[in-house]
């Protein structure tokens, strides 16, 4: 039976007894089905694609980094944020849509996904959320994932505290003059403030927020702290990295304690770098978008570094420098085959490191111990801006 007769339609098929009597095919007919994800391992990660060129179609990819294989994707629309539960059972996307695409009713949403099916388990409308190029710390989870914290700024700076059981906003905590969310434990978060302090918000037993401020410890216009500085909700440790390369190790909490800073450059045997007062001096500096990552059990800090003047804090890193957070010494430097604005690491004993090629949307998977490129996913996306791995 020829091709054209097949395509002519159902009636034609019925009219052809030769077809109805065809032998049992060797290849079996197939039902359509839907994949579920293999169990998440330490190298199963989320990769966030902001899609700057078509921002309303941002997305988050689930990637098997051992195989360099895409396992699935979900929408993460219009400067969305993504946060993965440490046990990788579920993840959250805070996103924004308008009913008619670029107009009509605005929907700010906190969506919870089952990490095995990628099915939506909650799709909650928020009062608001901040629209800003996505940073990990615009959305946070408490250590036990009982709470999600959504940073907003419409019109005043605040954090919406979402109960992830009831999927309701239980508080909107004003954080005047402050921004971002660095969660600690199960009932608190800190934020960085314009006056160089940390605001520490403790959610008390009665549900009310109590705020303290640390003393001012940095000067934002002189040497700002990267918003993408890494922290851990479980132990409340944060590593606030300044534009010039100072690291303020901080014990987050209701009374956050900021340690005396150490210098990335000094830890690498160079002299400390100047800040905004000597802007033209060229040296190695931290920079990029998600410009640092933490391996918690290794006590190692990964930082994207490039050579440049001050005010080049968003420039792609040409190398990753790895520090021991206890000795403040550089353990190794790993030149990148492609300069990257993001770096991520997995939390296991054989960690992988992730960087991205902004030009092509390529995703580069390396051995975090050596920097050796293991595999490259060509054009995984468009604007890969950060990763989230289990146990972070």
């Amino acid at each position, binding site marked *: 039976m020829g091709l*054209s007769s097949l395509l002519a*339609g159902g009636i034609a098929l019925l009219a052809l007894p030769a*077809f*109805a009597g*065809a032998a*049992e095919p060797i290849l079996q007919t197939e039902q*359509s089905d839907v994949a579920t994800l293999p169990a998440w391992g330490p190298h199963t990660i989320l990769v966030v694609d902001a899609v700057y060129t078509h921002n309303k179609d941002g997305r988050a990819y689930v990637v098997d980094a051992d195989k360099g294989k895409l396992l699935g994707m979900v*929408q993460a629309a219009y400067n969305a944020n993504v946060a993965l539960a440490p046990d990788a059972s579920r993840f959250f996307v805070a996103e924004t849509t308008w009913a008619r695409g670029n107009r009509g009713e605005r929907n700010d949403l906190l969506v919870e996904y089952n990490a095995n099916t990628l099915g939506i388990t909650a799709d909650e409308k928020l009062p608001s959320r901040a629209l800003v190029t996505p940073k990990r710390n615009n959305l946070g989870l408490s250590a036990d994932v009982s709470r999600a914290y959504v940073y907003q700024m419409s019109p005043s700076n605040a954090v919406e505290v979402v109960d992830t059981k009831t999927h309701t906003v239980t508080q909107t905590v004003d954080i005047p003059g402050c921004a971002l969310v660095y969660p600690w434990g199960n009932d608190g978060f800190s934020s960085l403030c314009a006056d160089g302090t940390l605001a520490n918000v403790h959610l008390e037993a009665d549900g009310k927020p109590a705020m303290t401020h640390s003393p001012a410890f940095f000067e934002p216009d002189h040497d700002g702290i990267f918003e993408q500085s890494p922290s851990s909700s479980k132990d409340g440790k944060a590593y606030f990295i300044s534009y010039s390369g100072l690291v303020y190790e901080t014990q987050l909490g209701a009374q956050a304690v900021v340690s005396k800073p150490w210098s990335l450059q000094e830890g690498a045997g160079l002299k400390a770098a100047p800040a905004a007062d000597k802007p033209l001096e060229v040296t190695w500096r931290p920079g990029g978008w998600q410009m640092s990552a933490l391996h918690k059990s290794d006590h190692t800090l990964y930082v994207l570094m490039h050579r440049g003047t001050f005010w080049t804090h968003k420039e792609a890193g040409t190398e990753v420098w790895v520090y021991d957070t206890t000795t403040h010494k550089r353990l190794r430097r790993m030149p990148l085959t492609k300069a990257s604005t993001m770096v991520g690491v997995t939390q296991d004993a054989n960690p992988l490191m992730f960087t991205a090629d902004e030009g092509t949307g390529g995703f580069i998977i390396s051995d975090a111990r050596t920097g050796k490129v293991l595999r490259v996913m060509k054009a995984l996306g468009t604007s890969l801006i950060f990763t989230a791995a289990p146990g972070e």
Partner: protein
Amino acid sequence: MSLSDSGKKQAGLLDRLTETTLRRIAGRSSRRSVLTRLGGAVAAVPAFMLLPVSRAGATTKAAGAEAAKPKAKTPFGAKAQAKNDLACDYWRYCAIDGNLCTSCGGGVHTCPPGTAPSPTSWIGSCYNPQDGNSYMIAYRDCCGQDSCNEVTCLNTDGDQPSYRPMANNDIIWCFGTGTSEMYNCSTAAIVGKIS
């Protein structure tokens, strides 16, 4: 002739030659299993399964004239391979248009997690160089997320314009999936043997 009186309402795209109609005619699955599999789709598009095959689906004379011919190799079939379902020249993809679900977290007849297969599809006829047979392939779209973009193909063996929807690869085949009609990727399921 006034169309509002014509009673032609039942003759539409989906009833003329849906995959499911075709399966009931030619496939191996019973009507009941098809209905079971459709599930929510039936509820979403109630008219969908129940309409008769319309006159518009009737064969044109060309089909009749060529029905007796032996299978002809097609341009695609002449170069197809049967080993790598991540490549555009995989034999089943002779008329696929879009993203391969095999590259998106799904499989050759499996949708990626978080998407849903369309109960309807268009149908291609592809030559398998391994066994020398041709098969009916249902290009079911997986729906509910925007375009996956990993491996994208445009093959057009037997692809006809949208006024022949059962053979057209431009249509978003996301009717009755229970998700939005947003296209993520394409599968290529075997639904019958031709020769």
